[in-house]
């Protein structure tokens, strides 16, 4: 193909189609230009108008999400969202998908996903302080699963460990719908002083446009277009469009950028992510309301004879585009050269709001910026709502013994310990990780302060599939709950919306439904969206994934000494459930994995008022010192949550509570289990009455067993063994 990627080829409608443009879109481009585009211009338009860059199917619905609040400094539309965390400090964060590349080449796909999201965050002036991820793989028994898990985990670790940013949390699900289309969503959180935030907008006619970082090669050309198409069996042939990451160069780029950002030389800065030099230059100039001239002969290349088309569309990693104040080039160049990085003035800002590109002394493109940046058509794709599902029918169910069900769940793919994964991530580098992987939310101290950020990634795709609205609500609510359980106040979310082919009305209906639910939850919980990413066309051979709107929540606690963990910490403490337990088994792990019932029924309903009230109550009682451990109740219900709290520090629990399988394994929402020491009991129950919150004492801590009177006794050691063995057994080929 590469011999064709230059202006010697005349553009036809067939070539436009090969670039993923519809005939109508191509006609629009011809209209905007007033002529037939040349090959370079077609390439640029095709990536800027790809689903990945233009959000053309999703924009209409994204606009409806709540994005404002007093805590929001920068909402969606920049490289990352920015929130106020007090004292002049900010948290800057975003989550992004790297699904398609990770399926084709798991190590590099995942690694460059992590590298890309970190650049989005440090482009804005932040120092990245935490990485998280949300991963979805096919069935454990699928022949590709182990290979993909091993490669993705290794790639995430390989990049994050080297650059020296701790990977502190994440979530993993396995489901057959991801067999041919795994999801790799990477989230990065950074911190910056509020007066040192950098934006993309480029201003000042004549200001120099500067390229820094690694050299440009042919890797990743049309990665954004690939991410905007369905997979088929021939997708492996797209391996060359997967970028190759170099975390060492990114570390140098991070340090060099931080050093330059300490001065006031930068006007605007933007990383070269999807669609590389093209999207970065278009976005910077468009946001600043100026034009841009680029001379490709100045671009540092690591391959010879690259055409202008290839240079503009390359997705080589670890590169940044900056606009500097005129006259500050020399001081910036000195910094980048000290770090051994390329630095080149490749153009300047112009008036006229056009993008003009020269190569080998000739003009090879001249395009109107407005149409490149925002000109892609916004589609209102047909959508049909997911039908209402029947309630779970418990009438003819034979329940196994509760002890057997518990053991089965603790060793289940969805609940088994993820230690095998997170021990491959450096979770402690930077010396501020207070709570790493394995808890409800990770806690990372804001360096040199008493504050800590609480972070969690959450979504339950099987709920979203059964009922997109309730599933969308639940994803946001679970992130809210996980953060609240540490004592931190939830502040804002980022999201990564992974769906199938939006051209199918039922898929579009899932998208619309999930966003509806998410929006309701964000509003009710005062938990706005500040950044995000959409990944559509997650299908292989026409089979879509479960709708997976992954949520990355961020909160803050003013004094980390007041934060608590999710495990029991003492014997003879009282154990309470906050929130009502009705025994909701619909779409529960119990239904799927213990009863082996695949019927699509209604998932648990989310009462957003109760969520908020319970979250506020948990945070208040933690702050008052009444609650000394808290864990949200999610997958697997009460008994799994109790087991997890006991396993954390090996402290058992005994309960006199009488309940059936639905009680112990139901997944009613809005619930927490908390530990209240004897001397705090009166204060806790009084506070619950005052707040009107449903609390129910279910047992006492102590011993080294989980005991439910007349129902079961299991040693914590055995639960731990069952829970810990599954992943290593899978990866060593012993199971599945």
């Amino acid at each position, binding site marked *: 193909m590469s011999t064709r990627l230059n202006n010697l080829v005349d553009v036809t409608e067939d070539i436009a189609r090969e670039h993923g443009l519809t005939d109508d879109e191509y006609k629009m481009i011809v209209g905007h230009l007033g002529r037939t585009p040349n090959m370079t211009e077609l390439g640029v338009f095709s990536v800027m108008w790809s689903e990945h860059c233009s959000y053309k199917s999703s924009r209409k619905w994204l606009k409806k999400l709540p994005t404002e609040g007093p805590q929001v400094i920068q909402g969606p539309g920049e490289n990352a969202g920015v929130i106020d965390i007090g004292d002049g400090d900010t948290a800057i964060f975003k989550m992004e998908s790297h699904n398609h590349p990770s399926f084709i080449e798991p190590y590099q796909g995942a690694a460059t996903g992590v590298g890309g999201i970190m650049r989005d965050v440090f482009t804005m002036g932040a120092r990245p302080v935490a990485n998280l991820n949300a991963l979805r793989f096919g069935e454990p028994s699928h022949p590709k699963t182990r290979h993909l898990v091993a490669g993705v985990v*290794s790639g995430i*670790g*390989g990049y994050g*460990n*080297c*650059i*020296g940013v701790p990977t502190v949390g994440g979530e993993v699900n396995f489901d057959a719908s991801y067999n041919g289309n795994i999801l790799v969503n990477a989230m990065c959180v950074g911190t910056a002083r509020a007066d040192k935030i950098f934006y993309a907008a480029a201003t000042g006619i004549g200001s120099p446009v500067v390229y820094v970082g690694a050299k440009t090669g042919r890797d990743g050309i049309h990665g954004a277009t690939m991410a905007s198409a369905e997979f088929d069996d021939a997708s492996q042939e797209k391996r060359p469009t997967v970028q190759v990451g*170099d*975390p*060492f*160069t990114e*570390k*140098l780029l991070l340090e060099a950028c931080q050093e330059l950002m300490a001065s006031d030389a930068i006007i605007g800065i933007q990383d070269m992510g999807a669609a590389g030099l093209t999207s970065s230059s278009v976005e910077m100039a468009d946001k600043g309301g100026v034009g841009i001239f680029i001379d490709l002969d100045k671009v540092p290349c690591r391959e010879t004879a690259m055409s202008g088309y290839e240079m503009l569309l390359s997705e080589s990693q670890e590169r940044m585009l900056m606009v500097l104040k005129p006259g500050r080039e020399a001081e910036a160049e000195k910094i980048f050269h000290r*770090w*051994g990085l390329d630095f080149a003035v490749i153009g300047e800002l112009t008036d006229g709001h056009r993008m003009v590109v020269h190569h080998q002394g000739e003009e090879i493109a001249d395009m109107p910026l407005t149409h490149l940046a925002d000109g892609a058509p916004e589609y209102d794709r047909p959508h049909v709502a997911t039908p209402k599902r029947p309630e779970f029918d418990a009438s003819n169910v034979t329940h196994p013994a509760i002890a057997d069900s518990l053991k089965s769940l603790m060793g289940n793919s969805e609940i088994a310990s993820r230690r095998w994964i*997170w*021990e*491959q*991530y*450096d*979770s*402690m*580098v*930077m*010396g*501020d*990780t*207070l709570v790493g992987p394995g808890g409800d939310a990770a806690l990372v*101290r804001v360096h040199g302060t008493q504050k800590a950020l609480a972070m969690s990634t959450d979504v339950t795709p099987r709920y979203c599939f059964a009922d997109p609205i309730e599933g969308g609500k639940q994803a946001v609510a679970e992130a809210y709950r996980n953060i609240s359980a540490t004592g931190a106040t939830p502040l804002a979310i980022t999201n990564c919306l992974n769906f199938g082919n939006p051209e199918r009305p039922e898929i579009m209906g899932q998208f619309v439904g999930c966003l509806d639910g998410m929006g309701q939850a964000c509003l009710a919980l005062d938990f706005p969206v500040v950044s995000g990413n959409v990944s559509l066309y997650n299908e292989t051979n026409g089979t879509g994934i479960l709708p997976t709107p992954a949520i990355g929540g961020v909160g803050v606690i003013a004094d*980390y*000494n007041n934060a608590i963990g999710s495990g029991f910490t003492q014997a003879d403490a009282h154990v309470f459930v906050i929130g009502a337990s009705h025994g909701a088994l619909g779409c529960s792990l119990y239904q799927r994995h213990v009863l082996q019932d695949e019927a699509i029924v209604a998932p648990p309903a989310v009462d957003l008022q109760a969520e908020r009230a319970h979250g506020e109550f948990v945070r208040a009682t933690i702050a008052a010192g009444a609650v000394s451990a808290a864990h949200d109740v999610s997958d697997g219900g009460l008994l799994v949550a109790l087991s997890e709290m006991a396993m954390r520090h090996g402290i058992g629990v005994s309960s006199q509570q009488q309940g059936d399988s639905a009680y112990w394994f139901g997944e009613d929402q809005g619930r927490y289990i908390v530990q209240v020491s004897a001397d705090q009991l009166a204060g806790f129950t009084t506070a619950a009455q005052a707040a009107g919150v449903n609390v129910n004492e279910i047992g006492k801590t102590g011993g080294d067993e989980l005991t439910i009177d007349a129902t079961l006794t299991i040693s914590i050691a055995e639960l731990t063994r069952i829970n810990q063995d599954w992943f290593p057994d899978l990866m060593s080929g012993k199971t599945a």
Partner: protein
Amino acid sequence: MQAAVIVFPGSNCDRDVAVCLEAATGTPPLMAWHGDASLPDCDLIVLPGGFSYGDYLRCGSMAANSPIMREVVAQAHKGAAVLGICNGFQILTECGLLPGVLMQNTGLNFVCRDTRLTVSNAQNAFTHLYQQDEEIIIPVAHNEGNYFADESTLASLQEHQQIAFTYGAGDNPNGASLDIAGITDKSGKILGMMPHPERRAEAALGGEDGKRLFTGIVESLA
């Protein structure tokens, strides 16, 4: 006393260890750049963890040949104390200040977790605040921490009490010979270790077992 932390491109625990040194000495250490050909006289030089030069070649081998390392080696020979943590340990073996090599973990994966260590020699300049054979917990985070040396070198390390730390029984994360987690030179003033004491020098981070290493060396040099 003058302490310095060498910053290689790709070092990523330089700030973490500087925090511990400042806590132990009361003043921030000198941060010395890899490309510098000179280094002020130092009492203690720290080679921090990370991925120096990306570690795309054998870990630590590029760093061992950087300009600053000629100075580090020269000062070590004049009696300066040197501490190499993780990648720093790899650099110390690569530049010949410590014997042996660090191979890839036998599990073939990067491993980051707490490990139980035994203080095998509590007599040297770094470890004297620990009890002999005391069990402590310090985390590791590495892909190449599998200490290897030939039989005679291992015998010599044992004979001269150069094994400072060993992994607790059943807790060897990387397959290291003799469960070695850290060794010194014969003088006991050059220490290389895979575990990260700077990550456990504060109660909020899970414990303070690593703190005595820093206060210990500072006391020794005072």
